[in-house]
């Protein structure tokens, strides 16, 4: 990290209970190679103990610390301050869109979690189904496949970025459809039926903002397209094949 410190103003979204929101400003001395979350945590520790924000793992495996930083969805624990600001600039910190605000920077993502459960997304998967790197062939262990935590960390950034999700709470949203895609790889005929509806895989309008903001290699936009092919494939199959 560099020794040169920057002076940055953080403009933070505040909202308690059902009061109308406002923005509080905090002037901080930061290291440009600090993460945005470090600064938010310091605002709480040294400036304002009433601030609420969610965080846990601090290395992009838990998905708790998603916020909008200068209007763009970021996983704040891996976003360097120098990526999004300059010395002397203002950084706007807001909660994710398209979820109800609990308070300040905390949103209620229960719809995301229940949707993931509904489509049967598996939190851990065999490595062969979600290879860790595309250029490395997954090595299978003698007695089966390695198991690994799934790519999707359920951070909600994609749903916040999705233009369709801003107007309809019914839409499953990118993360859940990507989860459905993962669940449909081995079997998952039920999942395909579930997403073949107005609020499911056909609601996407290809803005690809989900893929743009995804911090965890899920590429929901791509998964939605794959899911469409899977749904159409199974439709065609049931049309000609086993139609009992």
């Amino acid at each position, binding site marked *: *990290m560099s020794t040169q410190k920057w002076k940055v103003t953080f403009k933070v979204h505040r909202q*308690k*209970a059902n009061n109308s929101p406002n923005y509080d400003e905090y002037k901080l001395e930061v290291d440009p190679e600090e*993460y945005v979350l*470090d600064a938010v*945590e*310091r605002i*709480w*520790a*040294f400036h304002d*103990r*009433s*601030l*609420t*924000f*969610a*965080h*846990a*793992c*601090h*290395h*992009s*495996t*838990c*998905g*708790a610390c998603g916020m909008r930083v200068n209007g763009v969805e970021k996983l704040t*624990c*891996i976003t360097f301050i120098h990526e999004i600001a300059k010395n002397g600039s203002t950084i706007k910190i807001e909660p994710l869109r398209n979820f109800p605000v*609990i*308070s300040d920077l*905390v949103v209620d*993502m*229960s719809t995301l*979690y*229940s949707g*993931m*459960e509904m489509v049967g997304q598996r*939190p*851990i998967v065999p*490595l062969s189904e979600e290879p*860790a*790197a595309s250029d490395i062939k997954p*090595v299978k*262990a003698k007695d089966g496949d*390695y*198991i*690994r*935590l*799934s*790519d999707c*960390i359920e951070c909600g950034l994609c749903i916040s970025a999705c233009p369709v999700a801003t107007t309809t709470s019914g839409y499953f949203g990118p993360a859940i459809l990507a989860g459905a895609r993962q669940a449909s790889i081995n079997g998952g005929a039920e999942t395909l039926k579930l997403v073949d509806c107005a609020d499911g895989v056909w609601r996407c309008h290809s803005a690809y903002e989900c893929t743009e903001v995804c911090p*965890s*290699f899920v590429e929901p936009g791509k998964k939605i397209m794959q899911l469409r092919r899977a749904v159409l494939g199974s439709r065609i199959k049931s049309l000609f094949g086993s139609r009992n």
Partner: protein
Amino acid sequence: MSQPHVIIIGAGFTGVATAHDLALRGLDVTVIERGSMVCGTSGRTHGLLHCGGRYCVKDQESAIECIEENLILRKIVPQVIEPNGGLFVALDEGDIEYSKEWLEGCEACQIPYKQLTHQQVLKLEPYLNPEVKLAYEVPDGTFDPLRLALAFAATAKSNGAKFQLYTDVTELIIDNTGRVTGLKIWDRTKDERRELHADMVVNATGAWAGEIADMAGANVPVRPTPGVMVAYEERFVNRAINRLCKPSDGDIVLPQRRMVVVGTTSFEVEDLDYVPVVDEQVDLMLERGAALIPGIKNAQMRGAYMATRPLIGAGLTGRSVARTFKCFDHKESDDIDGFVTITGGKATTLRQMAEKTSDIVCQKLDVEVECATAETPLLSYRQYYAL
């Protein structure tokens, strides 16, 4: 309300596991947490599901706890565990020397291990330093910290436990007999202050246990000891890689999602609420991590962070302090009734810490129900939000 009401302070690993244990025994439980779920030490752990090999030489009590709990967690919460095993690898003469003591330790603690040939180990983990001299396979694992806690919390919730996040404890309410009868709390989501009464208060605040105990005028000899961890953007290994040496800095490399995480260090701090990342320690992790996995040298860093372990003990410092846990009944130590502190330990032993704490709580409340958490599979972590 027929059942005794227990308030647990802290939604870290011990807090959520104790909430689950007590709720399963039928008690009325409320968890108070000032931040989000596991936002302190627990959320920032390595994520190593210890087999005990790390402690089997110097701290066999901890090692035995680890291997017991490792096997139980694999059964009750497989949903958050990468159960791919681990390796202990020797890289130099010193490591080879240490391996004799280590093997004796494994035998003593009943940690299963299997020696691998040079060829075997490099076939399993091709990115491992080819200079590896000795390698043993052990039943380590990796877990997702937040989701592990959520699975416990979800199950606790399904048994009636309530979780109140973003709520600070501002004061402990103590009656004139010297008994803790509740808390004054500040709900920061609504900016609202009120009182909450309980038959028993459990202080499960880990490294912060001393600060909460201090509110009651009680004493807990907890020694907050932070360590750094650094995540790199490539999953070089599928197993937890441990250096076969006396626990030291940066001697563990773990896979997690598409990353590897290298940890950790050990030092002491005064201010717990914000522990800055120290540059020199990040550099040290790179150097030490690269000794095990040379590829780390050229990997992109993804995140660097600090977690503060709650070590127990007076006199000793850092790594020489035992990693076991301790439950304090403040009636015995400070003549304050209705108040119990649980601290120390490691993530791997969360269930056992909760069991011991719940035993004490139940005994003090005259509740006679056996612990059943070792046999009770946990609900999906997502149920925490659905319930």
